[in-house]
């Protein structure tokens, strides 16, 4: 479908289309964006699935992510190695989950991953503190941050273990009306 050269075969595009929330056109555009990030690294020809990964530092500089306080966490949660190096598949995956069409359940799973800074499968007080500091950046005093953390965990924790498991998180998110619209990046 490329103009001069084929970037993907039709089959590949079909596969992408079936597995993500993007259309062929958008996949091609995404490839363009991915290529832009590291022109020397990323080949134009993807027909034979080259094993290329773009490091976190480059991805984080995308305008869509640049100002996001959770940019590093987003990229890390979607990378296969957990360190933030994204292959093109991971890259597409990331924007697919963050797209408008992705269902709440899927978004919730990845949102949980993003907010779980220390990757222990729970959002504990430290995770929440980090989240808050990123969210507000000097708007709140440290005491207020601690207070908010305590209250938030108290509110959302259903099983009383003083941290949020995914069940707690999902339960809370299901009551947040604007989660679907806020957890969304337009590409």
């Amino acid at each position, binding site marked *: 479908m490329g103009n001069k050269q084929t970037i993907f075969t039709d089959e590949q595009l079909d596969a992408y289309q079936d597995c993500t929330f993007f259309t062929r056109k958008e996949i091609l555009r995404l490839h363009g964006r991915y290529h832009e990030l590291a022109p020397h690294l990323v080949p134009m020809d993807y027909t034979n699935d080259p094993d290329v990964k773009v490091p976190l530092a480059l991805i984080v500089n995308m305008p869509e992510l*640049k100002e996001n306080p959770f940019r590093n966490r987003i990229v890390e949660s979607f990378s296969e190695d957990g360190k933030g190096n994204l292959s093109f598949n991971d890259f597409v995956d990331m924007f697919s989950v963050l797209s408008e069409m992705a269902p709440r359940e899927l978004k919730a*799973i990845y949102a949980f991953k993003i*907010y779980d800074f220390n990757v222990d499968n729970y959002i504990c007080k430290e995770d929440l503190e980090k989240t808050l500091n990123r969210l507000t950046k000097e708007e*709140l005093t440290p005491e207020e941050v601690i207070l908010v953390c305590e209250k938030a965990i108290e509110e959302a924790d259903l099983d009383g273990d003083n941290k949020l498991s995914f069940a707690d998180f999902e339960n809370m998110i299901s009551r947040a009306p604007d989660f679907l619209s*806020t957890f969304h990046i337009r590409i």
Partner: protein
Amino acid sequence: MDGRVSFDADPVIDFESPADEDGVHDSFSQLIQEQCHDLHDVIEMTPLDLEEDSRGQITPQPILARNRPLRQEVTSDSSLTDLCVSDDVECLEADSDAPQQTDHLIGERWSSDTLKVLSSMPSRTIGRSRGAIISQYCNRTMQLRRRRQSRPSIQHFPRSARPSIRGYGVETDAAGFEEEENKRDRLVNNLQNLSDSDRVRMLRAMPLSLSEKKELRMLVLNKAEHSVSQNQIPCCSQLKYYIIIALRHGWYGWLSFLSSLQLWQTALKCVGGRFGTGVLSYFIFLRTLLFFNVFLFLVTGLLLVVPQAITHPDQDQNITVRSSWGLEVLTGAGYFSHSLLYYGYYNNQTLQTGHSCSASGNGTSCSSGLSYNMPLVYFFTIGAAFFITCIILVYSMSKSFGQSFRIDKSKGLLAIKVFSSWDFKVIKKSSVRLQRANIGTQLKELVAEVNRQEQKFPVLQRLFRLFIHMLAWIMCLGSTLACVLAVYYFSEHMHGDLRNRTQAASSDPLLKEASLLAVPVVVSSINLLLPGFFNVVAWMEKYDSPSMLNYISISRNLLLKVSVLGVLCYHWLGRVATDPQSLGLECWESFVGQELYRFLLMDFIFMLLDTFFGEFLWRVFSQKALKRKRKPVFDIARNVLELIYGQTLAWLGVLFSPLLPAVQIIKLLFLFYMKKVSLKMNCQASGKPWRACQMTTIFITLLCFPAFLGATVCVTYTMWSITPSAGCGPFRGLKNMFQAGKRWVHRLAAVNPDLHWLASAHSYLVENPLFLFLCAGIFLIMIYFHSQVVDGQRKIIELLQEQIENEGEDKKFLITRLQHIHERKRRVTPRPVKGASEACSYS
């Protein structure tokens, strides 16, 4: 202690699965069950286990174990020694990991059995859906693969996406690769059994990495090719697919277009970011009012003003254009009094298009051509506009009631704010800063609300405070009463004055016009000054909760405004309308319309003055003269009530002056920008941040209950029982405006005998008050039921929350009991062979 029993029943529960997903679900339940069984084969590594295992066992040989090429597969019935040797590596690897995982989970050291039971609890395992199970499967394969590729230290691995399933984190990969292959096969089979669109949907919604998904898809497709003949209608389904995509795109485009239509979004964001939700609610309310007026304006403009404007009025009005233009804009009299602005200009004819037959008042009706019965249209337009406004108001009121109750009662607001308030779409630096400020302010408000404790005062102090409050209320009520009386007598005096002037025809017309402005000026200055007085009184009272302060201030201001408006309505409908001849008025409706126009305009001018003097000069004064650092705080209650007052005037005036909503629209537009600028320049965010989620509800309620209801009552009264003036307007010659409908129906029945039933229906349904009472009664009952339902829901929510809390307590209790029993058992039989094998059987 077999936890399996609890499992097989539970995982199928899916709270959110829509009806059409049942099929999908069934095909996955098997997989889920599989996973659940699997859970028991998981080893749970805790320090306790380590101790237990190493105690009196073969010493671990990590080097030997690490050199083993492939992990030995361990089944649950493998022998004890075998298990412990093969697991030593895991123990060591997980060593650095396990304490971190467990120690902040539970402060105490639970026994492994308890942990096992814990980890298999439904709340941690039911995946509200297969999504979690699948992702878990994915993570396991991923980890397995990574381990096979290289063996980095284990703690860097990201944990599974289904984090609530404990145990998987430290599971042994001895579960085996083959098993994973089996699982994948099953997954592929499941996917294959689905229809095309379902498969695509499933694939997309799986929390797997894209490469996994692609592999799965390939497998599914390959299998499909081998086994079943390809589905015959790919083209058709493709087409359907494209159509659906196109429709969806169109829908999303439409949605984004709609959201881009939302007025003043950036301005509102800016205000909300800097001043918090309280001030924001004022601006949102202003916007709501603007929409109401736009609606009214569109209705009256399209149905009344445009048809009237394109037909020439038959009688030539000898308009004497005088030069006092400036004054006319203020008073709305003079040139304007014979214009589309007022009731008097509209005629009572049936406008005809097509045929040129002259239709005089009581009609030789034309048989063909489009007829436009002005009185009827006037009547029904006003009626319908009020009715629709009423419905919108009641609807938005009930909606916002529901919302505020939900927000009010349900917990988890803080957590929701923290996790779902960041808008990931925002990419501009300035907006990011704004968003930060906004979230910070909102969190502060929430925390402030949580933190406010009830203060206890000694009895004497409480009595004193009670006395102060009583005194304050007496002062406020007294001053309100005084103002109302003043308005009453002053309007009476001005009424008499006007009568004298008209009788003594020699008086200066300019002065006469100017004297019309006296009452509006007095009323507006009362509206401006008295709230200031109320504020001083409230300051004296020293309320400690800002929302309480607001409620008090709102109720006092409301009382003032309602009573003043009541007196004015009496003045217009009681004095002017009943005796228009004494004022020499040909058309009292136009006069009342002019009065309302004057009040609206005066209100606006006084708001301008208030903004300039009250906010700007006060800020300058307090900063320069008083050397205060702080800027004044925006008074939400007073400003909102001023808006409500203006809107009531506009609603009252629609009948008498169909273009009044346009004036109100202009006023509101001005006001928005003025207040925004003034806010930025002169005010600062309130020192005590408070949450204003119920504020919008209260504003809407106030708008609905005293304001709109009062206006409706007045307008209905006018239509029903006041004789319209004989010389002007669409209803001339009728006993009341209401008769327009009746006359039309009778005429219809006379022309067409078949429609005779219409006349009787009209007389029974519309003229008979019983029917109207019935309608109103039904309406009220519906509102009542609705409120009851909301109330019931609230109660149920409370009960459920309580139940959840109780369940949590139960769980804690059971866990401690369990732990207790295990410990006792261990103490009695230190390490029986049977028990040990049971303890290890989860590996």
